[in-house]
């Protein structure tokens, strides 16, 4: 299991692309894995025939765990078991340490001669029964030379069987298609339903945990987006609102914080998480690190790049870690209000909903009011009542609104 990021400790096998017996080229994708919601294709480190898959799909193992073995000594053209056949279980395995029916004369001290590591490995690869090989080594040991000569002469154990004994039958177990994972119990007669994908499960776990951990409240502030509209050009609203939010976070640092247990850590730098939808598959929150150093154009460029790579499954786990504040922006779908769930362990999340033209009351400087048509939106921020109070939340949002409405380049 490769380590896909500095602090990644485990990964999940999403799908094997090769089966035992398949040939794989060096750098050809051999398996798909998921680490911390990031899906990655893993290229094979070597060319060869896949010998054994050691971890099944859906299993989660520690980084460094051996996932599969590849026989690099084989050649592409060699005959191999059919892709859908599991290795025939009736083959007799290597005999060692005097167990089983050794046909060689026992060594003078009664112990059978040892099998050296290389002999054992080669015998396994070629599925040779060592008891059938005569040894010229010390104490009648089968040497590497002996085994290689045997394999060359007698052929690969898998290609040419020994003469079957009376008790062995040519019957081969039929390949059984992999059964799907058991369906959730959704009641009688409702059909099997679908198992949630790894990503869905992970998102779900995070959301449930967040709701169970934080004391969620949502505060909503309305803002006039006229200035933003004038300034944004071809950019979407998001980078400009992000810039305004960052400015507000500098003024209200306690919202740029993470809460773990009782410890509130207020951060100097703003690492801004931006929620990116992956369509039906789910969502992911890549992070713009050191966002406070970027202009709105810079933010726009970074967000675009991260979103593109997120959808192409090219993010590294370090790019989804370390956010101090999150913005989610499903606004283009037309919804007006939302109560987002906080991205743990941050203390707040800002949801940017649709910008809609509405008639609003505007005041001129001299106390007169009139009706104007303005592009308006709601900033919906969910926040953790363990870390701050309604006043703090409202003040922060007020500052965001102020920056947005007073936007100037």
């Amino acid at each position, binding site marked *: 299991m490769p380590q896909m990021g500095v602090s990644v400790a485990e990964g999940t096998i999403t799908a094997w692309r090769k089966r035992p017996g398949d040939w794989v080229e060096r750098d050809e994708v051999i398996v798909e894995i998921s680490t911390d919601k990031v899906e990655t294709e893993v290229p094979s480190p070597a060319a060869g025939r896949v010998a054994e898959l050691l971890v099944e799909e859906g299993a989660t193992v520690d980084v460094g765990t051996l996932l599969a073995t590849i026989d690099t000594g084989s050649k592409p053209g060699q005959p191999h078991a059919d892709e859908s056949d599991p290795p025939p279980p009736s083959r007799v395995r290597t005999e060692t340490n005097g167990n089983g029916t050794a046909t060689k004369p026992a060594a003078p001290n009664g112990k059978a001669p040892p099998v*050296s590591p290389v002999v054992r*490995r080669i015998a396994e690869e070629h599925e040779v029964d060592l008891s059938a090989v005569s040894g010229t080594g010390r104490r009648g*040991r089968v040497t*590497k030379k002996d085994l290689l000569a045997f394999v060359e002469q007698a052929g690969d154990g898998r290609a040419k069987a020994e003469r079957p004994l009376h008790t062995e039958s040519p019957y081969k177990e039929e390949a059984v298609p992999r059964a799907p994972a058991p369906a959730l119990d959704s009641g009688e007669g409702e059909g099997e339903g679908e198992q949630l994908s790894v990503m869905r499960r992970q998102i779900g776990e995070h959301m449930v945990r967040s709701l169970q951990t934080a004391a969620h409240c949502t505060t909503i502030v309305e803002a006039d987006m006229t200035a933003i509209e004038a300034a944004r050009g071809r950019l979407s609203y998001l980078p400009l609102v992000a810039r305004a939010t960052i400015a507000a976070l500098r003024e209200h640092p306690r919202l740029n914080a993470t809460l773990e247990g009782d410890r509130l850590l207020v951060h100097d730098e703003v690492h801004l998480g931006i929620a990116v939808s992956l369509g039906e598959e789910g969502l992911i929150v890549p992070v713009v690190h050191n966002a406070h150093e970027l202009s709105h154009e810079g933010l726009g460029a970074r967000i675009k790049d991260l979103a593109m790579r997120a959808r192409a499954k090219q993010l590294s786990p370090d790019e989804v870690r370390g956010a101090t504040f999150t913005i989610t922006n499903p606004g283009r779908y037309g919804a007006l209000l939302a109560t987002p769930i906080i991205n743990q362990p941050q203390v707040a999340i800002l949801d940017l909903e649709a910008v809609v033209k509405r008639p609003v009351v505007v005041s001129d400087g001299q106390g007169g009011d009139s009706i104007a048509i303005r592009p308006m939106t709601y900033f919906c921020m969910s926040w953790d009542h363990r870390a701050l109070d309604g006043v703090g939340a409202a003040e922060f949002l007020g500052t965001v609104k102020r920056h947005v409405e007073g936007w100037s380049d």
Partner: protein
Amino acid sequence: MPEITYLEAISDGLREEMRHDSSVFCMGEDIGEFGGAFKVTDGFFEEFGANRVWDTPLAENAIVGAAVGAAVEGLRPVCEMQFADFIACGFDQLVNVAAKMYYRQGLAVPMVVRLPSGGGFSGGPFHSQNPEAWFLQSPGLKVVAPSTAQDAKGLLASAIRDPNPVLYLEHKNLYRRVKGDVAEGRYQTPMGELRLAREGTDLTVVSYGAMVHTALEATEDIDGASVEVLDLRTLCPLDRDGILESVRKTSKVVVLHEATRSCGVGAEVASLIAEEAFEDLDGPVVRVTAPDVPIPFSPPLERAVLPQVDDVKEACRELLAY
């Protein structure tokens, strides 16, 4: 290409480097007008002068320490210890000052210490040692040990150009016994790469220095077996890949060195193989070395201690038959 001795090749390499770069200079006892105890610097005093061929007082720590100071100031000193054994008298400067300077201070120390090593001529306990393993335990030092005339010249040049302290083990017993076709002019033999002295398929002998020749002689014909002989040439950094590649091919290994047994280069190579090539082994890794004993003086005693051709033959035969 002229055929010259191992000794002449060392001289030649040193001379070429000194001609090429005036910052290269020699320091050691009796290396000036006397030309050195083994005549490696014969003629150097006349060609390069007293400034660049310094007859030092009998003070190994001062020699090595001064070499450090000169090296960090941009010169390239080549120190000669009259016998490798005497490095013990300069050990402190080598191991505590030279070796650690770059790691601690980021200050490179481009210096070479030439060590005439090895026995076989009744030199006794203080003139016959092969002390290379001491330096493998001192991170920051590189160690080379050529066995051929060609490599003697090329490795010395590499050592001189390397920005690190390099110990150059020249085996005294090879000085005049080994000859080779050595190219004229300057050339460098890369450090960290072993040389395939003979290709084979049944068994590998890993060796360096004088023992490479013993290995070749001993395994020329062992009942028709095809024996591969590796000449490590560089002991630190070790050519791990080269060693492992050979092990994968032959699956049987004898490690041979003249130095004493415990914690020697052989121990390091054997461990490396056990750790990294376990599944390629068709037999235990065997070491043929001098036993853990000071090298004795009287010929029959010395012969009993230093690995001989027959010792190597026997070990190989046994492993081949395993």
